[in-house]
């Protein structure tokens, strides 16, 4: 019924549009009254438009009395004027562009910054867009308090790392919800150059509007749109060269042989290598091979070019954005290319009716090796070689081309050259339609229908290649493998209806914002999987006398992922703010400029999380009669209660701004979808999805920024510090329960530990000699001198599970960042430094152990030089690391030996730019810049890359050095 009324009123409006014509004239002037020549005067919703003359006057025919004029000119703010019976309309335009920071995109509505009562942060897009960022995630490092982005990889075509907002509070996917122009998407899907604004909703009161997944925080992205009356072309292009910054240094061939012998002798085995062969290797008669040099065949390069063509007239605006991102890996095969096109339009259908119609598509092509198709595999292969192993057989006189030596059936160089290629293709297309009807100046109704479809496919090709042993006999054949496959395609349909009311009350003293709406979402996969969500929500902002602000949000969410009768969640929240600077008793300070803005905020709310797989609650019996998982009819939402207190201060004539927040998030009913059940239930996975566990996250965020100007010299310096403490409150049904994880035995949950932790043994040095081993009762079997001496915590004479303790958590603590911006005339210089004050890293895999601990021979690979230099020997008792070993060892248990301080400070970005204001008549704002990303790092971390824990070899982390150009045409 409601829709019918709406629809009819819509029709009425359209009919009214065809009334009689009328001529309007007037003058366009700036705020001082000086005429503006060449200003554009347009009739909204039509093609009619004129330009003002040299004296600023214009004359235009409008179709009817309800018409709205749009007046624009470069360097001035746009203005819209209703005709409403007037025939002479003089327009004054305000200088400068509209201050975007004054408005906050809150999700389904925009609110003036001063009327926001919840915790919302905005990214400085100017800075994010003037630097060469290939993937939008990278922009989150060190830019927003409370948001961490641990960059794990520079692998072409992959996601660089995960963003976490105010700590982790779930066992499920902890990625924040990302809304791009009202659509649920991922950050990977958008080119940074296409983004107009990024808003991060941190607390419950702001995220409650997205009840369903707000618990991980929400990132709202708005893309660029065209501007009325200004046709322009923007070009932004950069080219970068990458340099690995975390390559390990393994011992050379001769040292490898010596250390291998050393280990074997200590283990009572016969040494493998003779003095003679070691001497040959040491003298260079047999070359020592650096396998990483062998597989890194060229410099990695990347480039990104974005072209944006935008403009607008009375009928609307458009912005066509084309992007091309190219990343090349470290050999001729690996790399990725991404083509993207976004076409955003505002169509003024009638003076009160506008349709935002946006189209977006991208294609991501990723090229990998067929032999190691995850991109990291090649490097882990190279790590498990040792320098005494050769790539090719030495001249055997056998006349075999590319006579590769296989080591454990592998040779990473052969993997590149003969292992074939694999190509992945990912296509995304979206349509996003947002009709908006302004019923009155204050009330509008907005619809949104969006559709996203993803498709992906892969193909691979390997030609036959034969390997021969040293005697020329065939050993292995890599057979011909050529094929392709299509993956499951996903489509996402969202429809939403919103009603927005914005109005002044009590004669502009108070302001009210009210939004209410409903939305339905549906994901359909081509394998018949289907997920649905339905929501009703409302939000009210009320500003009383611009001093007291109340923000109330309520949302009801239903999700098909949960058991019947447990599908609906209700998530209310409220926030209060006090604009102290608007109090009369502070006016003297405000007038003198000592205080420009002072605001206190407090919020409290409940939000939910449903970011889990569908059907987890259901009974599923497969065709062999297995109950796959134990059904759970009580399976429901994860919930989170969060309070937040914040303060904003701008002082000293807007030069210094300070912000501080403290928060506490209490997450409960956490979903563990692999909760173990007793095996006698006879179910296949012996798991059930249950709501279990409680976690607290508490933390603070402080930021400060100082900016000023001395003559031609402008500068700003900012800094932030934030921390989050994570604590499990309940790990099961009862407060005393502990929870262990089948897939990760080095982690435990019991009240008091962090959600992710290192659960292992404490060590007390190394066994000095055989006598020490013999006289120690509490030791593991097969312990030798030089092995780790674990502490028998309970003194029962056995080293077992009861002796394991919590050794810390892997989360970054005391995160800080500093940024510096300098401008002198046309020069600009910027630095972003990011650091982590405290983090316990794990020297996992071969970053720690002297061999590859693969659960098989445990004897591949070589120690790092750092390990070799700091290893235990009978002569070096107080060493950092235990003895060298190979084969099974008691040293590989998680213990404090393998944990290390991973705090760091890193120059995320150093950039120098120069701007040419104008070249000829058509080119403006030409900026040329050089940039270094991740170039300098200070750390005591004993592993390779402080932002990630160790492993058995991955695609290297890179520093990127780039050269960029930005220009606007017309």
């Amino acid at each position: 019924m409601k829709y019918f009324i709406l629809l009819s009123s819509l029709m009425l409006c359209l009919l009214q549009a065809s009334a009689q014509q009328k001529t309007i004239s007037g003058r366009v002037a700036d705020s001082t009254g000086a005429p503006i020549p060449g200003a554009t005067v347009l009739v909204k919703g039509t093609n009619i438009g004129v330009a003002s003359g040299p004296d600023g006057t214009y004359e235009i025919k409008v179709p009817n009395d309800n018409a709205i004029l749009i007046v624009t000119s470069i360097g001035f703010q746009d203005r819209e004027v209703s005709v409403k019976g007037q025939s002479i309309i003089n327009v004054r335009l305000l200088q400068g562009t509209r201050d975007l920071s004054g408005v906050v995109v809150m999700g389904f509505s925009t609110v003036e910054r001063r009327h926001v009562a919840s915790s919302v942060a905005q990214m400085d897009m100017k800075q994010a867009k003037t630097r060469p960022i290939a993937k939008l995630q990278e922009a989150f490092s060190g830019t927003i308090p409370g948001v961490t982005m641990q960059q794990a990889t520079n692998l072409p075509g992959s996601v660089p790392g995960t963003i976490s907002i105010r700590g982790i509070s779930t066992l499920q996917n902890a990625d924040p919800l990302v809304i791009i122009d009202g659509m649920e998407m991922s950050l990977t899907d958008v080119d940074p150059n296409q983004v107009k604004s990024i808003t991060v909703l941190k607390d419950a009161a702001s995220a409650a509007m997205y009840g369903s997944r707000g618990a991980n925080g929400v990132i709202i992205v708005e893309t660029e749109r065209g501007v009325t009356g200004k046709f322009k072309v923007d070009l932004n292009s950069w080219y970068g060269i990458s340099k690995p910054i975390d390559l390990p240094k393994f011992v050379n061939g001769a040292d490898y042989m010596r250390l291998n012998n050393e280990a074997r002798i200590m283990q009572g085995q016969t040494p493998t290598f003779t003095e003679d062969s070691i001497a040959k290797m040491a003298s260079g008669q047999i070359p020592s091979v650096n396998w990483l040099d062998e597989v890194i065949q060229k410099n990695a390069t990347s480039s990104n070019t974005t072209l944006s063509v935008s403009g607008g007239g009375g009928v609307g605006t458009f912005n066509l954005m084309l992007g091309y991102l190219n990343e090349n890996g470290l050999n001729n095969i690996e790399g990725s290319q991404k083509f993207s096109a976004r076409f955003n339009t505002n169509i003024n259908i009638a003076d009160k009716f506008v349709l935002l119609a946006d189209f977006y598509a991208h294609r991501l092509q990723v090229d990998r090796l067929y032999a190691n198709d995850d991109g990291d595999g090649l490097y882990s292969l190279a790590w498990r070689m040792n320098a005494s192993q050769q790539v090719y057989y030495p001249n055997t006189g056998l006349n075999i081309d590319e006579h590769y030596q296989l080591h454990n059936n592998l040779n990473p160089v052969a993997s590149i050259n003969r292992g074939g290629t694999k190509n992945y293709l990912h296509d995304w297309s979206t349509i996003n339609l947002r009709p908006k009807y302004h019923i009155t100046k204050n009330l509008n109704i907005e619809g949104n229908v969006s559709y996203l479809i993803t498709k992906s496919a892969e193909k691979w090709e390997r030609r036959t290649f034969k390997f021969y042993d040293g005697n020329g006999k065939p050993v292995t054949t890599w057979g011909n493998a050529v094929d392709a496959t299509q993956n499951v395609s996903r489509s996402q349909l969202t429809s939403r209806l919103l009603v927005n009311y914005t109005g002044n009350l009590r004669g502009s003293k108070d302001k009210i914002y009210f939004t209410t709406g409903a939305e339905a979402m549906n994901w359909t996969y081509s394998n018949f999987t289907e997920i649905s969500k339905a929501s009703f929500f409302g939000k009210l902002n009320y500003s009383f006398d611009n001093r007291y602000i109340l923000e109330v949000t309520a949302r009801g969410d239903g999700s098909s992922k949960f058991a019947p009768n447990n599908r609906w969640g209700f998530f209310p929240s409220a926030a209060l703010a006090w604009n102290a600077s608007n109090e009369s008793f502070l006016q003297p300070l405000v007038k003198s400029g000592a205080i420009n803005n002072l605001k206190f905020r407090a919020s409290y709310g409940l939000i939910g999380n449903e970011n889990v797989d569908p059907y987890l609650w259901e009974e599923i019996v497969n065709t062999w009669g297995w109950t796959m998982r134990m059904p759970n009819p009580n399976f429901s939402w994860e919930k989170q209660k969060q309070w937040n207190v914040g303060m904003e201060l701008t002082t000293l004539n807007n030069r210094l701004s300070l912000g501080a927040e403290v928060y506490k998030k209490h997450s409960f009913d956490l979903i563990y979808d692999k909760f173990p059940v007793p095996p006698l239930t006879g179910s296949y996975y012996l798991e059930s999805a249950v709501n279990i566990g409680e976690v607290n996250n508490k933390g603070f965020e402080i930021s400060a920024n100082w900016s000023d100007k001395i003559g031609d010299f402008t500068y700003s310096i900012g800094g932030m510090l934030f921390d989050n403490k994570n604590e499990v409150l309940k790990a099961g049904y009862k407060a005393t329960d502990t929870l262990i994880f089948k897939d990760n035995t080095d982690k435990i949950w019991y009240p008091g530990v962090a959600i992710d932790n290192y659960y292992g043994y404490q060590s007390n040095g190394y066994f000095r000699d055989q006598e020490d081993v013999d006289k120690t009762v509490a030791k593991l079997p097969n312990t030798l001198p030089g092995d780790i001496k674990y502490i028998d915590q309970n003194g029962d004479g056995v080293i077992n599970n009861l002796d394991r303790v919590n050794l810390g958590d892997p989360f970054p603590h005391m995160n800080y960042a500093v940024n510096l911006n300098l401008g002198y005339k046309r020069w600009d210089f910027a630095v972003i430094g990011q650091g982590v004050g405290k983090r316990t890293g794990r020297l996992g895999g071969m970053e720690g152990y002297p061999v590859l601990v693969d659960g098989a021979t445990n004897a591949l690979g070589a120690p790092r030089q750092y390990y070799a230099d700091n290893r235990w020997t009978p002569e070096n008792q107080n060493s950092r690391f235990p003895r060298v070993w190979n084969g099974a060892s008691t040293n590989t248990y998680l213990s404090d030996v393998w944990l290390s301080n991973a705090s760091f400070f890193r120059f995320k970005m150093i950039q120098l730019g120069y701007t040419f204001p104008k070249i000829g008549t058509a080119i403006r704002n030409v900026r040329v810049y050089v940039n270094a990303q991740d170039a300098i790092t200070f750390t005591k971390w004993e592993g390779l890359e402080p932002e990630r824990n160790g492993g058995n070899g991955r695609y290297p982390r890179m520093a990127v050095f780039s050269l960029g150009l930005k220009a606007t045409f017309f």
Partner: protein
Amino acid sequence: MKKLVYASLICATTALAGCEKFLDKTDPTATRFSEFFNTEEDLRRVVYSSMLDVFSGPGLTAKLPYMEDGKTDNAYSRSEGHHHQLIANGNFNSNTTAFLYYYELHMKHLGRLNVFIANADIPYVEDEAVRAKYKGVLEAIRCWHYFWLVSRWGSVPYYLEPADLGSATQTPKSQEEILADLFPMAENVANNLPPDEYTSDAYMFNRYSLKGIIMRYYLYFGRYEDAARLAKEIMDSKKYSLHASYADLFSYKADKTNKEFIFTMDMASHGNSATNSFQHLAPQYRTGNGQSFVVPLKSLIDTYWTLQGDAIDNSPQHTKEEYELNPKLNRDPRLTASIYMPGDMFATEPINIYDPNNPMYFERPRASRSGYWFRKFVDPADAFRSGGNMHFPYLRYAEVLLTYAEAKIMQNQVDALAKQCINDVRRRAGLDMAHADVTLPKYAAYTQQQWIELIRNERRIELAGEGRRYDDIIRWRIAEKVLNEPALGHTRMVNGEKVTLKIEDRAFRPNNYLWPFHENSLKVEPGLRQNEGY
């Protein structure tokens, strides 16, 4: 106005009802129990999958009988993930995944079998005898699971009904309690099973194959009288006999044609998929796929009798060192039939474990680190094909004979039949019966202890590489001795010094005779009590 209220109420209710329907999404791939358990064929499939998932899957590297010796002094298993290596070398504790893997595998199958047995009346059958047979086989498999669990952990939950979340956490019963119920129940199930091997599914329990398994566990748990009784019953059935050639039993020459395998992992047991014994046991050879996952150790090699049936350190013909340096010298033919060693021809090439250019070089990951390989179940016919089609014995007649002999020896009643059993096995093995016949006068004065040593060694040799050794060293309580020795390999003279390859140190603690419950199991089943010392 009232109308409007009603109208909006109706609107709201329909909208909400619409929502509820919109949110009602269920897994399209899910079926219910009633949809699956329909006919006789489903009963067969349930038996089949109950065997396949635990006992007869050709890829079950943790359960295949020929891999099991990797837990013992007979062999070395090179991959931790197969769950033998750590049990052999002692580097385990209550967090070791092996214990979770085995416990959950058997227990969840018990839970599943309980459901099927309780519902065995549901599927439609033409002939009720078919239902009785399948139900009997399911009950037999259930007994086998419990025998196995009890011998590893001692006290375990013992429950024969379908369990829900509540009843699945049973308080464990002691080993004695369970066995007191289990042995009579198993014999009862066996007596109701058909006596003859099935024409197509030799892997399904019949009367005598189940009795063979029960006999084995009577022996393991020291119930020698019952063990001897069942052994005698199987002998008296005259359905089985020793195959003429020992070597042929473990190759394509006789794996399918012998009358010795009583209980067989045949091709039907895994739906005719390829068997992997060559891949699992053989050396890497040219383009072949040998992985050397489990390889024999020096300890096993040195166990083999001399041709005359003597131990190598007690041989009038040669010294122990001579035998060590040349294992083929004057030895029990079962050594050659069971083991590949350096110098042997593998396919067309001599095995050279000391040439770094050779894929069989002992330091290569896919080579044998001991320098020895099993020959049992490794047929060169599989060398260049991706899989085999071999039958494997879970239980063969020789074990019945040896069980009778051992049970009698343990009761100190070494009768003529017991001696004949030993002689039958020795004769078929090809020992020089002029010296090795246990009815000869030199054996007349044997004490019980000497007989025990003889039968234990005989059993170790005869059944080497067939998965019996771990249970034997546990029940004989000799694991403390034999698993506290390092794992050694090939021996040779280097510069006048005897050098033996050493793979790893091993340790076995006095409490290791029972396995630990995994921490995860203890969490999930609060009633479990951790075994001593873990």
